[in-house]
């Protein structure tokens, strides 16, 4: 056998550790095509998107949503003779890349504004740089914690507390009393829901939290934590995990004999649960947007998205990406300048009222965080369906 030196083993180990490390019918209300004398012929905003990696399913949808908005903005000459462009960089769902690309964007003074199409842990690596360097920053997929660091940051998803009240109400309507919680400890939003929001909602909705278990986002086998939740007597489980982990958790719980209710976050939307087959039937989550929503504005956005992307249904990421670019365009138009300070003032002004061309319906901002009504969505084994609110 090969005799391997310690330094070679250590070198390989270090490298391994380093390696470990996403409408035409949607016009604006104020699309008057006014001349924008303070704007150059082209304005390029920077997008930092997860196009690969664990959360690429969200980043890609956000990217697609951005492209729809961009076509509308340029098509209707929203910025007059100025053409809006987006330069996207793939973050690979990686925090280090997020920080380094944010630093590059901040250093490029021609960039008036940055959009991050990435989840909380990755956006949190970029947010301090944006804040310190004074770059207007729209975070389209993240939660507030660790990202909303000051006046330069705008967050698009409706805060999870507001969304989870819908899910808790659903559990109450099903007669659930004992809740088990499984969450990804590397995600500040999921951690907040698991450790603060549900304990805070428990009394109001008649829930007793029987067990809370954190897992890392690289935990591939969830048999042990699932067994622990079921052992504690949970008759419902909150899934604070996304992507493959959510499908694995649902399947392994089903194989352990669990027949109760699952509630989740929007991280399970977009067909994520399909691999779990029959075990995923009935998993319910609250969301800002869903392609199955019956609201007119959601339906028109969904139709445009499907026609542009080969029939693929949009998930919330697409709506956030769309909203992010429209928000950026409005701010730039309001500022009539690509100066970052002016664009920030533009953001402050356009977010003072209700934005009503969002696929999510009417959107308002409070403390630079957007709010919409939301809806409950359920996986029926093959597709998402809207659930009447209890």
């Amino acid at each position, binding site marked *: *056998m*090969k*005799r*391997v030196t*310690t330094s*070679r*083993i*250590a070198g*390989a*180990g270090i*490298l*391994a*550790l380093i*390696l*470990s490390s*996403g409408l035409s019918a949607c016009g604006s209300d104020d699309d008057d095509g006014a001349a924008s004398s303070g704007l150059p012929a082209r304005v390029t905003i920077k997008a930092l998107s*997860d*196009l*690969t*990696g*664990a*959360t*690429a*399913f*969200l*980043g*890609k*949808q956000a990217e697609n949503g951005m492209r729809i908005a961009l076509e509308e903005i340029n098509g209707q000459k929203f910025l007059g003779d100025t053409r809006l462009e987006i330069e996207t960089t793939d973050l690979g*769902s990686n925090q280090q890349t997020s920080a380094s690309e944010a630093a590059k964007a901040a250093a490029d003074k021609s960039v008036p504004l940055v959009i991050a199409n990435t989840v909380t842990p990755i956006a949190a690596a970029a947010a301090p740089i944006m804040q310190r360097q004074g770059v207007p920053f729209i975070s389209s997929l993240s939660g507030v914690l660790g990202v909303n660091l000051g006046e330069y940051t705008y967050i698009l998803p409706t805060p999870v507390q507001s969304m989870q009240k819908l899910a808790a109400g659903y559990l109450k309507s099903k007669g659930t009393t004992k809740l088990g919680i499984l969450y990804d*400890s590397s995600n500040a939003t999921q951690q907040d829901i698991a450790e603060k929001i549900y304990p805070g909602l428990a009394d109001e909705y008649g829930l007793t939290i029987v067990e809370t*278990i*954190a*897992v*890392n986002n*690289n*935990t*591939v*086998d969830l*048999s*042990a*934590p699932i*067994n622990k939740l079921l052992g504690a007597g949970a008759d419902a489980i909150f899934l604070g995990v996304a*992507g*493959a982990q959510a*499908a*694995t958790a649902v*399947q*392994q719980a089903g*194989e*352990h*004999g669990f027949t109760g209710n699952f509630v989740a976050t929007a991280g399970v939307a*977009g*067909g*994520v649960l*399909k*691999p*779990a*087959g029959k*075990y995923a039937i009935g998993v319910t989550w609250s969301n800002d947007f869903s392609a199955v929503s019956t609201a007119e504005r959601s339906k028109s956005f969904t139709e445009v998205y499907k026609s542009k992307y080969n029939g*693929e249904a949009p998930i919330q990421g697409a709506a956030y990406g769309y909203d992010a670019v429209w928000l950026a365009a409005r701010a730039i138009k309001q500022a009539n300048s690509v100066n970052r300070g002016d664009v920030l003032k533009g953001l402050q002004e356009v977010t003072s009222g209700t934005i009503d061309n969002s696929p999510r319906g009417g959107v308002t901002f409070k403390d630079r965080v957007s709010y919409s009504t939301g809806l409950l969505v359920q996986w029926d084994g093959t597709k998402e369906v809207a659930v009447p609110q209890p």
Partner: protein
Amino acid sequence: MHEIIYATTLASVYLMFALGLSITWGTIDVLNFAHGSIFMFSAFSVYLMLEHFDTGMGLLVMVLVGAGVGALLSGAVHLLAFEPLRRRANARDREMQMLIVGVGLSAVPVALANKITGGNPFGLRNDALKVETLHILGVPITSVQLIIMVVAFAMAVAVQQWLRSSRHGLALRAIGVDDETSSMMGVNRSRLALVTMAGAGVMAGLAGVLVSLSFGAMTPSTGDFLILKAFAVIIIGGVGSVTGVVVGAFVLAGAETLILTFTGGTWVDAMSFALIFLLLLVRPQGIFGRRAVVKT
């Protein structure tokens, strides 16, 4: 009892994944960072067949397809990248170049799978596959998990016996000690290296299919998560030692399961890798590794 059974199932997953990686590293000196991608893409190929033909597929067919794709990919990586590098680069630079090439190659299947799936998880469960849940000493365990345990340990025993008792195994071990001398003694290094890489690919493909079935879902990045665990397993046990991989898999899976059960998942990686660090301080070559001999 629950913890022992869950640790054993997890150890079996790590063992299946890490065994091929350890053998190629310890004998033909190829540290194949594309191993995780081969693992993932083998399962993904089966998924594409299921989607394309819109038909059910039994376990045997799935593992054969997965193992075949794994062998082809691993063999191709060796012939097209590692072997030309080995011939051209000097011994000092070769190892680092292979590492970098492996990292680069691993991105290709991941990017392809990401493009096709849109980054969504994929799974292999289908109507033709019957998965039963059994109870062993009161612990629920699926038939797929049982198969993984049996296959993992059968693979380890078979590889160990092959290395110890067969003529080719002896030749491979000789390459592991000194490939130049073994070549002068008539060992066809190139052919044996190709067979070893293809064999590692078979194990990766087999693991990809079975692990995907067991966990229900896999993403294009799942192989990247597991390669980190595999390095830990190999370093604990000692590079190139089959017994070492078995023990390393049990140590890591046992530590992770116990920490997860009794403390909380937040600490799993930190405490597991602290354990590895301590072990390396005491025994740098790993539990079953041998100290390096400095040639003069």
